[in-house]
C-alpha cells in the first residue's frame, strides 16, 4: 500500500512539479530549418520545400509541462538504506522568490505554404493554443512548512498568479530573401479567444504580530475571466463557442536572418507580440480589504451571545468582499525573443548558440541554448541542444526530421524528462507530419541546407 501511494505521490509531483514555460519554447526547433514549423520560432526561416502542406491536426502538436521551482529529486532524496526520504528544506532552498507551474498545448489545425519566385514564401496557418501558468511564491511554502510562528512581525507576501488562456490563431506569413545575406520574415495573426483567466499582480499579505500573535491580512486581488460562469457551458458544443465569440486580437511575429560570412550566420525573432480584447462572458473580480483577528472576544460569551464565531466570519467575509463586474478587458500575449548565432562546422553540420527570453508578468524569463545540428543525409536531419533555463541545467534537447514527400518530425527541448522526469524541471515535445513538395535536388538541397545552417 505504502509503495503504491508513494508511487502515486511521485507521479503527482511529476505532473505538478514540472513546467516552467509561459508559452511555447522551441529552442531546439529554432535550428531545424528542414521542418517548416521552425518558422514559429523564426519567421525569417525559409522552408526547403517549395510547397509545404501540414496534415490537419497532425502537422504540429506541441506539449510543454514544467515547474521552475524545483525538481522532484529536490524534494525526494535517496536513502538512507533502500528507501527515499522527503527533504522539504532542500526543496525550499531551490525556490526563487516567485515560481511557475506551466502547461502548454498547441495544435495546428491547418497549415500550408508555398515559395514563389525562389525568394518569396507565403504561408497560412490556423493554430489552436492553450496555456496555463500558475505562479506561486516561495514565501508561502516557507510559511506553511515552518509555520507562521517563524515569521513573527513579517509581512508575508502570498502573491499567487494564474493565467489560463485558450485561443485560436489565424496567421499569414511572408518570408523574403532580400539578398544572399539577408532574409526577413513576418507573420500577422488574427486571434480568436475562447477562455481566459488573468490573475496577475495580485497582492495578499499575512502578518502575525510579534507580541500578541494577532493576524492581519491585506488583499488586493484582481481577476478577470472570460468564457466561464453561467451560460457558457451550455454553449460549449455550439458554433457560438467556436466561431462567434467577440474576443478578438492581433499579434505579429517578426524575424531576420543575416549571413555574415561563410562561417557565421546571425538571426533574431520576436514572437507573439500582440493582445486579445476579451468581451464575451467576461467577469472582473476585485477584492481590496483588510482583516484583523486578535483573538476571541470573551465578553461576547459572557453576555450570553453565542454568535461570536458568526460575527468573526461575517467580519472576514466583509474584509474579503469580492466585487464583481462584467466589463471587457485586454490581455497581452507572452511575447518571446530569440537571438541566434550559428557557426558552420562542415557542409552538413553547424553549431548554434541561442539566447531566449519570454516576457511574463512583466518579468523577462531567460534561457540559453547551445546546439549541434546535423544533416546526415538529404532526407534525415538531427539536432541536439543543451539548454540552461529556469535555473536548471539539466536540459538536453533532441530533434529529428525524416523528410520525403511526407515529412515526420519530433523535437524536444529536454529529452531527459521522458526518462528521468524527477530530474528535470521542463519537458516539452513537438511532433507532426507534413507533406513537402518541390524539394530541391540533392545537390541544390545541399546548397540550401548549407545556407540554412549558416
Amino acid at each position, binding site marked *: 500500500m505504502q509503495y503504491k501511494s508513494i508511487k502515486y505521490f511521485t507521479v503527482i509531483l511529476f505532473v505538478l512539479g514540472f513546467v516552467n514555460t509561459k508559452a511555447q519554447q522551441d529552442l531546439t526547433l529554432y535550428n531545424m530549418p528542414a521542418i517548416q514549423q521552425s518558422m514559429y520560432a523564426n519567421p525569417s526561416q525559409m522552408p526547403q520545400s517549395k510547397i509545404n502542406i501540414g496534415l490537419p491536426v497532425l502537422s504540429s502538436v506541441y506539449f510543454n509541462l514544467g515547474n521552475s521551482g524545483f525538481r522532484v529529486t529536490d524534494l525526494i532524496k535517496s536513502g538512507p538504506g533502500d*528507501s527515499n*526520504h522527503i527533504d522539504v528544506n532542500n526543496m525550499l532552498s531551490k525556490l526563487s522568490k516567485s515560481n511557475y507551474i506551466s502547461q502548454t498545448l498547441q495544435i495546428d489545425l491547418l497549415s500550408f505554404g508555398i515559395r514563389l519566385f525562389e525568394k518569396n514564401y507565403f504561408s497560412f496557418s490556423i493554430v489552436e493554443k492553450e496555456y496555463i501558468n500558475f505562479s506561486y511564491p516561495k514565501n508561502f511554502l516557507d510559511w506553511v512548512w515552518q509555520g507562521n*510562528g517563524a515569521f513573527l512581525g513579517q509581512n508575508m507576501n502570498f502573491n499567487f498568479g494564474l493565467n489560463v488562456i485558450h485561443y485560436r490563431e489565424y496567421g499569414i506569413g511572408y518570408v523574403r530573401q532580400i539578398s544572399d545575406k539577408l532574409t526577413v520574415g513576418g507573420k500577422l495573426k488574427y486571434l480568436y479567444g475562447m477562455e481566459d483567466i488573468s490573475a496577475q499582480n495580485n497582492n495578499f499579505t499575512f502578518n502575525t504580530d510579534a507580541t500578541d*500573535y494577532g493576524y492581519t491580512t491585506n488583499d488586493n486581488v484582481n481577476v478577470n475571466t472570460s468564457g466561464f460562469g453561467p451560460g457558457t457551458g451550455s454553449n460549449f458544443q455550439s458554433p457560438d463557442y467556436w466561431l462567434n465569440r467577440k474576443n478578438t486580437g492581433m499579434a505579429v511575429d517578426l524575424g531576420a536572418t543575416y549571413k555574415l560570412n561563410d562561417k557565421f550566420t546571425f538571426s533574431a525573432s520576436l514572437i507573439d507580440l500582440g493582445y486579445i480584447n476579451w468581451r464575451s462572458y467576461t467577469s472582473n473580480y476585485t477584492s481590496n480589504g483588510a482583516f484583523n483577528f486578535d483573538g*476571541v472576544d470573551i465578553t461576547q460569551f459572557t453576555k450570553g451571545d453565542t454568535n461570536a464565531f458568526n460575527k468573526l466570519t461575517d467580519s472576514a467575509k466583509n474584509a474579503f468582499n469580492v466585487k464583481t463586474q462584467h466589463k471587457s478587458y485586454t490581455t497581452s500575449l507572452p511575447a518571446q525573443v530569440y537571438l541566434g548565432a550559428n557557426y558552420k562546422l562542415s*557542409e552538413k*553540420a553547424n553549431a548554434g548558440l541561442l539566447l531566449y527570453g519570454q516576457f511574463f508578468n512583466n518579468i523577462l524569463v531567460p534561457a540559453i541554448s547551445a546546439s549541434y545540428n546535423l544533416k546526415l543525409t538529404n532526407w534525415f536531419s*538531427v539536432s*541536439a541542444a543543451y539548454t540552461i533555463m529556469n535555473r536548471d541545467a539539466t536540459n538536453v534537447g*533532441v530533434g529529428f526530421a525524416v523528410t520525403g514527400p511526407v515529412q515526420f518530425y519530433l523535437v524536444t527541448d529536454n529529452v531527459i524528462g521522458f526518462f528521468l522526469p524527477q530530474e528535470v524541471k521542463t519537458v516539452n515535445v513537438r511532433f507532426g507530419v507534413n507533406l513537402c513538395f518541390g524539394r530541391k535536388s540533392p545537390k541544390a538541397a545541399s546548397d540550401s541546407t548549407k545556407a540554412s545552417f549558416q
Partner: protein
Amino acid sequence: MILLAKRRVKDGIGIVSILFALSFSSCIKDMQRPIASAQYTPLLAAPVVNSTLGVNNLLVKDNKNGSIQADSNNFLSLIYRGRLFSLVANNIVKIPNQIFTYTTPGLMPADTTVFNTLPVGSSYPLPMYTDTVAFTTNNTAAIDSVIFEPGTGFSIDIISQFSQNATITVTIPHAKKNGVSFTQTFNLIYTGSLPVIVVGNLNVSGYTFDMTEGGTATNEFNINYSITLQKSTNTPAQLTDNASMSIGFNNTSFQKLFGYIEQPFLSPNLDTVPITLFNNTVPGGGTFTLVNPQVRFILTNSYGVPINATFNTLMGYNPVASDYPVTVVDPKLNPWQMPYPTITQIGQSVKDSVSISNANTNNTLGAAINHTPKFFVYSVNAQANPNGKPIAPNTNFVLDTSRFIVDFQITLPLWGTASNIMLMDTIPFSFSQSTLNSVDSLLIRINATNGFPVDMGFQAYFVDSISPALRYNVLDSVVSPYQVILPSANVDTNTGKVNMAVNKISDFTFGKARMNKIKNVKKLILKGTFVTYNNAKTNVKMFSTYFMGIKIGVLAQLQTKI
C-alpha cells in the same frame, strides 16, 4: 580524406550526444522506492483571546437580582434587590363559602280561615318575614360594608309546602346598587304535589352590603321574604304550611371591603437575597472592606391598614452555617410604622423607605458585608392594626387591587479595600492525546493592560483524580512560579481613583516534560487572587471608566510525521 575523417568525428560526437541523452531510462526506478516518513515541525502562533473587559463583565453577570449602577460621576455601586413580602387582598381577608337558612313560621288560624273562604283565583298576602344573617370572615375582619366582585356566587333554594301557587319576593334592604335595594321575586307553581321547589342564582355584583345594621353591628344584614298566596285550588290551607329558604355565598371575592381586619400577623418565612459579587469567593481567603454599604427598605402600600414591622432576622450568610447578623438600631425601624392611605386616598399607594448603614447598625452591616456573604437572610414580623380598632370615622379598607409590598435593596458603593480575595472555580478539562503528542512545546503569552486598582493574580491547576480521597491531585500549574499577572493600575491616593493603567506581558512555557506531566489531566482549577492597590492599605474607588485589556496568544512548536 583527412577532412572527411574530421567531419565524421564531428558527426559522431553529435550522434553520441544524442544517444547519451537517451541513456537514463533505468534511473527512474530509484524514485519508486518507498519514502520514509518525515518530521513536520512548524512553529504556529495563534491569537486566542482579545478582550477589553469593563466593570460589567467582571462584577455582575447572569444575575437577575444584581445590577451595577454608575452615578453621574461614573462611580459604581452594586445593587442587589429582593422582595421582603408582597400581600394581596386575599392574604389579609378571606371570605369563606357560607349558607344561611330560614323557614317561615306556620300560618295563623285567622289567615287559614280567611284564605279558605276566598274563591279560586283570589290572592292573599301573608305578613313579611325577616331573617338576620351573620356574615362570616373566619374572624379575620369585622366588616362594615363590602362590595362583591363579579363571579361571586349568590344562590337561593326555596322549598314551599303551600298547596297553592305563590310568589316569594326576597329583599335585602341594606344591599344597594345605585340607591336601589336588592330584590328578587320567585313564582312557585303548585301542580298537585308538595313540596314546590325553586332554585335561583342571583347576581350581587356591584351591590354594597351594609353589614352594620344601622351602625349597631358588624358582619350582619337582614333578608326580607314577602309571600303572596294565589288560590289555585279548593285545597284548604293548613296551619303547618310554610316555606324554607336557603341562601348561599360561594367563591366570594370583593372589590372593596371596609371595617376592621383585626390584628393578624403578616410574617413571611425566612427568605434570602443572593449576593453574586461574592460568588466563588473562598471563605476566609481574605479581607474585604467597603466604606459605606447600605441597605434600603422600600414600602409600597395601598391597604388602608396601619402595619408595624420589626426585623426579626437580618444577616449576611455563608453556607453552611456562618451568620453575620446585622443589628438595626434605627428608631424608625423599631418598629417601622408603615404609612397607609387614608379613606380619602382609597385606591392610591403610599410609599416610604428607610435605609440602614453602618451608622444605624452599630457597624454590623459593614462587618457582615466584609465577610463576603453569598446571601442576605431576612425575616420580618409585621402586624396589622397594632393599636387596635381605628377610631371612627377611621376604618380599615382593602381593595381587590390593594398591595402591600416591601422591597429590599443592598447598595454596595465600590469604595474600600480587598485583600487576598480569592475566587475559585473548577471546570472539566482534558487533552486529546494525539494533540498533546503533536505538541513539542507550548508558550502561552498573556499581554494584559490593567486599568483597575487591583493586583490580580491568576493560577490554573491541572489536576487528575487518583483516589476518592485525593480527587484533586495537582499535576502542574500554568503560572509557575506564581506571580501577579495584572499589577494594579496606579491610583491617586487622595481620591482613590486610577490615574494610569499598567501593562505587563507574561510568558509561560510548557516543554515536553511538562506536557507529559499534564497529559492525564481531568479538571482545571482556576484561581484568581485579588488585592487592591497598595496591598489593600489604601481605599480605592471603582468607576465605570475602568477597563482591562487581555490578550492571550499561544506559540506552539508542533512535531508530527508526514
